[in-house]
């Protein structure tokens, strides 16, 4: 065992650092530090830079357009990206449906969808949760009936409602879990469909969340016609894809590198903000809470590194990823609590937006503007991707055998 980076890793880190410094779009500077809401264009600007560099999909196998990086290099990449406050790209194409397609898809599906995910041409959204199927995802009821059309080809007719669909308002495509057999155990009658979001019968309605953001949506499907060749893997075997994808989602969800940067940011803020004529960082209570986050984050980071090492040795992400999800999201939420505490009175003013066209000066310190909305927004992290209660059930059952 050795913690030190090899000379090759150090050279790689220097390359990555220089690349981000030189190529990260200048117009995106400052957006992450201030917790700004990001537009589709913001994401795509950075996406396209990475795509042309060939660095868009570090986790993918090389044959499908991945970087072929080692686990250490991927770790370096995420550390450097977070340290530079670079945008984290949305996971729906790159980390979710992409791996499902290259793992379970047909050669035609791989050729049709993977290049467009890499290029950023298609924006993907995730049609999983339903109003009646949240934690109990397998009880989903969106129905897909198979039929043969006049053209002699087979299609599904899809009816139902999905909810909490993140940034569906931008999406070109969605991957949906649908019920194709209602007469079997819930998990055994689900299929995984790729649906063109421009299909007739799809309606996307915004859900405004506590910070005033339009981030999530309801997606209604009414007699949406989907060719059978847009089903991934076998009919009624979609749960296999779903579980594979959720385990992938959970590791990314830990957000270790971003939280490390978050700790630094709060430390900087607490050096400037005053409390009784001293820097807030000298307040023993605040100081201890921040230190506790750092300690927990170090333990989480090395838990993630152990998981990554296991993955390089050929073990896929397993139920252990639930630990990363729980601890990672708890730390993310604690950081937002500390930011709001640091803001003091200036946590109260409400800013709907302060993007282009809004040249009003800040009220209170810059960091405080988004402290409360981000705190509210980040409550989602212990709910989404399988709530933290569900993750504990997974560990109890799959890891501890209870």
């Amino acid at each position, binding site marked *: 065992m050795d913690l030190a980076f090899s000379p090759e890793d150090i050279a790689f880190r220097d390359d990555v650092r220089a690349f981000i410094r030189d190529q990260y779009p200048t117009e995106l500077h400052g957006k992450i530090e201030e917790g700004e809401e990001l537009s589709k264009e913001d994401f795509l600007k950075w996406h396209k830079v990475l795509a042309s560099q060939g660095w868009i999909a570090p986790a993918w196998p090389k044959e499908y357009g991945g970087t072929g990086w080692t686990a250490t290099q991927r770790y370096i990449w995420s550390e450097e990206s977070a340290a530079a406050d670079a945008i984290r790209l949305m996971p729906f194409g790159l980390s979710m449906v992409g791996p499902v397609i290259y793992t379970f898809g047909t050669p035609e599906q791989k050729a049709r969808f993977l290049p467009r995910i890499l290029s950023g041409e298609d924006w993907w959204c995730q049609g999983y949760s339903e109003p*009646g199927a*949240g*934690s109990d995802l397998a009880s989903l009821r969106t129905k897909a009936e198979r039929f043969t059309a006049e053209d002699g080809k087979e299609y599904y007719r899809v009816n139902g409602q999905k909810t909490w669909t993140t940034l569906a308002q931008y999406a070109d495509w969605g991957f949906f879990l649908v019920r194709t057999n209602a007469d079997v155990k819930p998990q055994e009658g689900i299929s995984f469909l790729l649906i063109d979001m421009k299909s007739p019968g799809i309606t996307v309605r915004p859900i405004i969340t*506590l910070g005033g953001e339009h981030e999530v949506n309801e997606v209604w499907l009414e007699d949406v016609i989907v060719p059978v060749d847009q089903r991934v893997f076998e009919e009624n075997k979609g749960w296999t894809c779903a579980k594979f994808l959720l385990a992938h989602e959970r590791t990314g969800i830990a957000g270790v590198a971003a939280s490390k940067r978050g700790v630094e940011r709060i430390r900087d803020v607490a050096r400037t903000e005053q409390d009784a004529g001293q820097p807030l960082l000298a307040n023993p209570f605040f100081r201890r809470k921040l230190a506790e986050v750092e300690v927990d984050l170090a333990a989480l980071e090395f838990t993630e590194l152990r998981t990554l090492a296991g993955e390089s040795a050929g073990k896929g992400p397993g139920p252990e990823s639930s630990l990363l999800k729980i601890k990672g999201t708890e730390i993310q939420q604690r950081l937002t609590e500390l930011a709001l505490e640091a803001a003091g009175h*200036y946590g109260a003013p409400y800013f709907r937006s302060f993007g282009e066209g809004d040249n009003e000066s800040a009220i209170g310190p810059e960091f405080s503007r988004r402290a409360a909305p981000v705190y509210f927004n980040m*409550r989602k992290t212990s*709910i989404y991707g399988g709530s*933290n209660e569900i993750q504990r059930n997974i560990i109890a059952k799959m890891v501890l055998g209870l």
Partner: protein
Amino acid sequence: MDFNLTEEQTILRDTVQRYLADTYDFETRMKSVHSGAGWSPAVWKAFAEELGILGAPFSEAHGGLGGGAIENMLMMEEMGRALVLEPWLPTVVIGGGALKAVGGAVADAVIPEIIAGNAIIAFAYAEPQGRYHLNDLVTTAKPDGSGWVLNGHKAVVKSAPYATHLLVTARTGGSQHDSGGISLFLIPADLAGITRRDYATVDGGAASEVYFENVALGADHLLGAAGEALPVIEHVADEAVAAICAEACGVLRVLHKTTLDYARQRKQFGKPIGEFQVLQHRLVDMFMEVEQAVSITLMATLKLGGPEQATSASMAKAKVGRAARFVGQNAVQIHGGIGISNELSVGHYFKRATLIENQFGSVDHHMARFETLSYGA
């Protein structure tokens, strides 16, 4: 010992509770939020005229109902329960409390105006550098003839956009952190030299940054003795803390009940989620937090005006601040995604609970104050 309300207090509470239940539903409140005003003058007028409750904590000599801290507690709990935006805290509790504390001609003049609903007072005490320290002041009032000249910047002054009066803390002597040299002024909100930057707050209210530039004050704007106002300000802040704790109790009772109802009705895995033991225990923990918040709020309220006022207020705010976070966060967690939607009331109660945590001092601030008061610096 007697924890029973008097008949008058019971009637007062029930009247307000019924009025708010009938007229102050969530949609009506959200209209005031979305209007950008952050309050409804019509509701305040109804408090004054239709209900006649603004006099509850004032003496009969001032035209009030003869109550005090208990009445403020009862009213603030109802304000919390209905998530009321209107300025009971700054006007009745804080403005009225300061006037009661200093008494004299100004109290005789302004308290009846509060009771009539004509005077709306905003408390301009916080400063950008000061956090929760009432003595950390750089706003100055310099003697000028028989009056004063006021200069400075007050931060996040709640209800200032629509206030008729500002209750302002300022230095008439000493340096930034001194306890001495602090004075309290009650001034008309539209004096020459006062400018505001108004904004909405995340919990649906309205506040301002208030700037004073060579504002000429008369001698009669001073409340109490010049340079000796910190004890009055601390007293009023303790009363405000007790009142906010009572508001929190109302907010948290609703959060708990709403969540309990949801857990009974929401089904996953073929049964109500309230049947899962992990959520049962969470709801029990929330319940215990709420009950303890109610208890310690009562303690702080009953000890106002006595020798343990300051320690009790800080104990209560620390305990209630923790309860607000725990109950608020878990209410959202148990609701799942819809807890984060702006369309349901639960998220708005959570937002208010979150701001209550830091209003008039965070948990850390009040734990430290309690420690210093009890164990020494």
